[in-house]
């Protein structure tokens, strides 16, 4: 009994401390559940994981899947990159300029809550049914979370830090570079995380409804192997955003001393994003001890 409990707590510890075990465990459990369910229902309703895997291999070997991914990923990246540049700049501008924000904010929220699909006819009329239309669709999907989050980020910049830079003689540009942008970065990244999710949906919809190519087209064509893209999509999503955020900006995250921070979403109740930075509280006592020794 006690040994069992000890094993159990050891397992829990491994799950908690290693970055790989938790996702691996949940993947295995999920696969097993999938297998179990698929054995008890007809193949048409839910194919077994093994069958999906073989069709995945077949599609990869024939070159059809790699090509589709390529055709999908380009407009996706272009639209997202464009949205990032435009969205962050616009968000900074709106955050810094309250008058402009009062003029423009209502329209941003209207756009944000409009389903992008409703804009499809306009996009087709203006940009045709080619590559550009796809990029525009992704751009529109990704733009608003970036603007809104960046703007909210600028609003929460601590005025006392701005005052410090001012007192040291900093001009507008320096204030932006030294205080505003660094403290907005976590908000920009959480905006980017939503933007990536929406862009993936966006590109699939564009390829389903505007241009019949890429993953979107495959999705339609291989209706029976629906699972395939469904697996690919979440992988793409998590892999990028979370990883990037944790690896590229470690020093940015370090300053969030608490373990969790909530990104406010003013006026938009649709998504309330909880932004978690897992940072260990450093040994304060340890540092203080150093300090005493040094004195």
């Amino acid at each position: 009994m006690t040994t069992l409990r000890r094993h159990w707590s050891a397992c829990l510890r491994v799950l908690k401390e290693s970055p790989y075990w938790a996702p691996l465990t949940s993947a295995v459990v999920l696969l097993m559940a999938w297998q179990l369910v698929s054995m008890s229902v007809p193949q048409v309703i839910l194919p077994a994981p093994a069958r999906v895997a073989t069709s995945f291999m077949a599609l990869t070997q024939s070159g059809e899947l790699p090509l589709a991914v390529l055709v999908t990923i380009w407009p996706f990246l272009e639209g997202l990159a464009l949205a990032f540049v435009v969205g962050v700049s616009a968000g900074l501008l709106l955050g810094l300029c309250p008058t402009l924000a009062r003029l423009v904010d209502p329209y941003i929220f209207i756009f944000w809550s409009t389903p992008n699909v409703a804009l499809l006819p306009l996009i087709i009329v203006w940009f045709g049914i080619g590559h550009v239309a796809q990029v525009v669709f992704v751009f529109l999907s990704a733009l608003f979370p970036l603007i809104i989050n960046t703007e909210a980020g600028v609003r929460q910049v601590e005025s006392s830090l701005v005052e410090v830079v001012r007192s040291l003689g900093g001009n507008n540009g320096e204030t932006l570079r030294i205080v505003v942008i660094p403290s907005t970065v976590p908000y920009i990244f959480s905006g980017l995380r939503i933007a990536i999710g929406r862009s993936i949906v966006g590109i699939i919809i564009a390829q389903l409804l505007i241009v019949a190519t890429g993953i979107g087209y495959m999705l339609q064509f291989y209706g029976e192997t629906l699972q395939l893209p469904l697996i690919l999509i979440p992988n793409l999503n998590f892999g990028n955003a979370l990883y990037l955020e944790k690896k590229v900006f470690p020093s940015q995250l370090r300053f969030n001393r608490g373990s969790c921070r909530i990104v406010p979403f003013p006026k938009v109740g649709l998504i309330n994003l909880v932004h978690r930075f897992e940072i260990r509280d450093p040994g304060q006592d340890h540092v203080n001890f150093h300090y005493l020794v040094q004195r």
Partner: protein
Amino acid sequence: MPKLEFREVGKSFVSPDDNKGTLTVVDRLSLAVEEHEFLSVLGPSGCGKTTLVRMAAGLIPVDVGEILLDGVAVTNSSPKVSMVFQNIGLMPWKTVWGNVALGLELLSHRSLTSGEREEVTASIEMVGLRGFENYYPYQISGGMQQRVGLARALVRKPTVLLMDEPFGALDAQTRAILQDELLHLWRERKCTIFFITHDLDEAIYLSDRVAIVSRRPGRIKQVLKVGLPRPRYAYDARADPEFVRLRHLAWESIKEELSRL
């Protein structure tokens, strides 16, 4: 000519409630700080001390009157003046070194020369933080954070140091240590210090003169000259009869202000 002079300075803020109009925070306040002097402003919380020092730093404009630095009206932040803040205001994403370097970067508006980098290191050393250059603010104690704030101010070699309750948030022991170090640094640097505090003992212990401010709207109520010998850290100044006498005077004056509540 005084180093820093307040001439009939007044400041009011628009109150958040429309019907209340404006809130007068500082009212025709006059005060002169002499060169190399250590002058403390002592007053109850909310009497406008922070407002006063923010005006002196050129962060907010005066409504009426003027503030003169070396005889010239203050309109903007000046390279001759450094400020130490009540809430310290370190950039959380910069290391100790980066925060101190900011003091020089914003003075010259370009990246640091190797000579300036040495000055940054020297300044960190001067406040006793050698070896902590690569620590982030949250990794060091409150006392050490305020040392960083002090180093960031001193690296600019200011002739006037404005300090807004710099030790207010620290525990008694750390505060006592930093007070002594401040006196040391002031002796070495020969700058003028305009020091804000609500702590009676601190004001008397550190200063040449203590200006007592009335309740809001802030006005100078009384200026006490502190006749204690210097250096004060070398002996127990707080036990000096002169200290006890001044403390009593100041306390009577402050008590009056508090009872007017």
